[in-house]
């Protein structure tokens, strides 16, 4: 439940506001349009970097649906990502190398898994839900690692297009990311979005207004799983090889969350902005602090949490300047 006092304080200094501002959406779309030009740089590394950004952004949108809009903080999104990735690998072993088929199967399987698991874990709240989802992610990793049919820890290979046509993976990821952005935008403004937010704000009160919390929580989770699964499918195809440590990497779990938080959770623009900035910061750290960049990355997270607790999107809506910002930082002091 939200503490009225906290929210009120944040409101007074301009940190509140419901999501889905058309301006934010427009900015994201413009940036997305610019990203269409990336393959023309003919630099594989730049293309891969942006493909990763789009991938993490898609996952951040996925996380945002359940964690940002519905208020259920999931640490198990990597399971859906990995499952989506393995869909590509399995299809490739069946000689089906079609990105559309990959993504379609990944979406269906990830959503089905989310619904199945959701029936159990979405009964939990708060920390318990968070831990249960973390457990789901790790358990799936462990089970896949022990399945010979999926190559065990050795993994599986996926046939790829040649270097000349490699940008097809970039565009596929771009489309998946665009799908996630548009889906988030339209869902946020729809009845569905209001059901999610109502559940986040107060599940009991939402039920009294006729919202079936269980059904809508599962819907939110299935949507978020679809996004993660689709990103995983394209990732696997572009990677050419898949094994549990890659498919279920802790990075794929934590990066999207940090990105969504940095940008602003429960917003349409936040995950994308967060993904772009975090990737940029990581890039700079890798370049200039080879030996200690992880140390700095830890420091960046600590600073973001302490100084930008509601993300950049909110910060730029702040009224009242530095003083108001400083005041917002003490809201959660014990």
């Amino acid at each position, binding site marked *: 439940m939200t503490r009225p006092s906290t929210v009120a304080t944040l409101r007074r200094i301009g940190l509140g506001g419901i999501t889905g501002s058309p301006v934010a959406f427009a900015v994201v779309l413009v940036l997305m349009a610019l990203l269409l030009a990336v393959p023309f740089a003919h630099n594989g590394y730049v293309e891969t970097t942006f493909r990763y950004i789009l991938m993490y952004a898609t996952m951040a949108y996925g996380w945002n649906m359940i964690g940002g809009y519905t208020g259920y903080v999931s640490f198990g999104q990597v399971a859906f990502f990995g499952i989506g990735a393995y869909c590509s690998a399995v299809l490739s072993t069946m000689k089906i190398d079609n990105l559309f088929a990959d993504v379609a199967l990944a979406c269906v399987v990830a959503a089905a898994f989310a619904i199945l698991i959701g029936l159990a874990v979405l009964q939990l709240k708060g920390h318990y839900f968070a831990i249960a989802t973390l457990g789901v992610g790790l358990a799936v990793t462990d089970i896949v690692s022990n399945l010979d049919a999926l190559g*065990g820890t050795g993994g599986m290979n996926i046939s790829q297009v040649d270097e000349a046509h490699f940008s097809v993976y970039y565009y596929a990821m771009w489309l998946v990311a665009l799908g996630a952005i548009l889906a988030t935008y339209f869902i946020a403004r729809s009845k569905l979005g209001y059901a999610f937010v109502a559940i986040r704000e107060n599940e009991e009160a939402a039920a009294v207004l006729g919202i079936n919390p269980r059904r809508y929580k599962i819907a939110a989770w299935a949507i978020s799983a679809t996004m993660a699964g689709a990103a995983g499918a394209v990732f696997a195809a572009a990677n050419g090889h898949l094994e549990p440590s890659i498919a279920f990497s802790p*990075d794929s779990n934590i990066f999207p969350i940090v990105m969504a938080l940095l940008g602003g959770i429960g917003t349409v623009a936040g995950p994308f902005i967060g993904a772009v900035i975090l990737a940029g910061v990581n890039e700079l750290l890798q370049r200039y602090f080879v030996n200690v960049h992880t140390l700095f990355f830890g420091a960046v997270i600590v600073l973001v949490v302490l100084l930008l607790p509601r993300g950049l999107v909110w910060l730029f809506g702040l009224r009242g300047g530095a003083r108001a910002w400083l005041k917002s930082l003490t809201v959660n002091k014990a």
Partner: protein
Amino acid sequence: MHLRPTAALAALILAAGLAAPSAPATAAGDTILFGSPVSLTGNLTKEGHLTQEGYELWKTYVNAHGGIKVGGKTYKVDIKYYDDESKNDTSAQLAERLIDQDHVNFLLGPYGSGTSFTVALIAERKKIPMVEGNGAAEKIFNQGFKYTFGVLSPARRYLEGILEMTRAQKPAAQTVAITAASDAFSQEVAQGAAAWANGHGMKVVYNNKYPDTATDVSSIISALKQTNPDLILNAGHLQDALLVQKGLKEQNVLAKAYGYSVGPDTPDFASSLGKDANDVFGGAQWSDAVKYKGAPGFIASARAYGAAIEATYHHRADYHNAESTAACLAFQYAIERAGSLDPEKVRDALAKLDVTTFYGIIKFDSRGLNVYKPMVVNQIQNGRLTTVWPTFTADGKPKYPTPPWGQR
């Protein structure tokens, strides 16, 4: 409109990240640029640093001795590193960065089988030759890759030397128990050992795996103890090798010999266990006791190489050092023979390479794997790593059977 600054900031940071000056020195000048994503942080940091030392020692030596001659022109060498955080996909991403952004001429492998595999995929796609000395999993070489070469013996052979050695002793070991970590490399090692044992009249009485993250293996050891094996083998990493060795003592498990794929060769093994590390066998790619005479162009003997590592890095040369240096040497000889820096020509020269170095023979089979170099077996004798097998290169005799705990 308040989002504009955010977007602008995002674009700015990203642009700064990508457009920052990339390494200027490529072959355009008179330097051959190598690139390697290595584990400078993460759980393979230690091995990553050993790899880097191997590369750096070679670089320093070659530059101090004039450089590499390529068709009449002499080039200095330089190596660009990135930290792959011991993560497979990061390693691949960085390989792509080294090729497309830093325009390296050639790739030197990262540390580990997982990372080597994902980097090999990139090397293959970008048609840039890579020589690696730290990824022994055979799956890397069973893909039909044309641009990846491994100077080391494959994973399945890591424990063969120990098996062979115990079969040659009296009384010969008849039964073997195998424990292995669940990662791909360790599983290949374990499968190789089990296959060899079964094919040579030994009986595998216990064979089980544990997760990489295991913090306690005492129940595996209890089960293993029940089978009363002559030989106990472990395929894993340093962390779990220590866990297993401590556990064996704690439960007073007595066998004729104890062998590890990874562990005894790292000084940390003996320093962590003290006396309990004594008499343990370890399979190794190389030791400073091996008696090869290297071709001109680099330090010719293992002893001298060991001394050089000792002088530069103040620790005893480790086989990770040597195999990393050997990867550089493969390039050095192949480039000289190709007389060109053209990736295709160097690749062809690598495929045809047949040279003996301080590390042993470097020659690749059709898959790009150096199956011609035998593994060595080391034993920790009184705290000192002694090479005991194969006999023609040994500097000591194996102490066998192993005395009970407390008398080591």
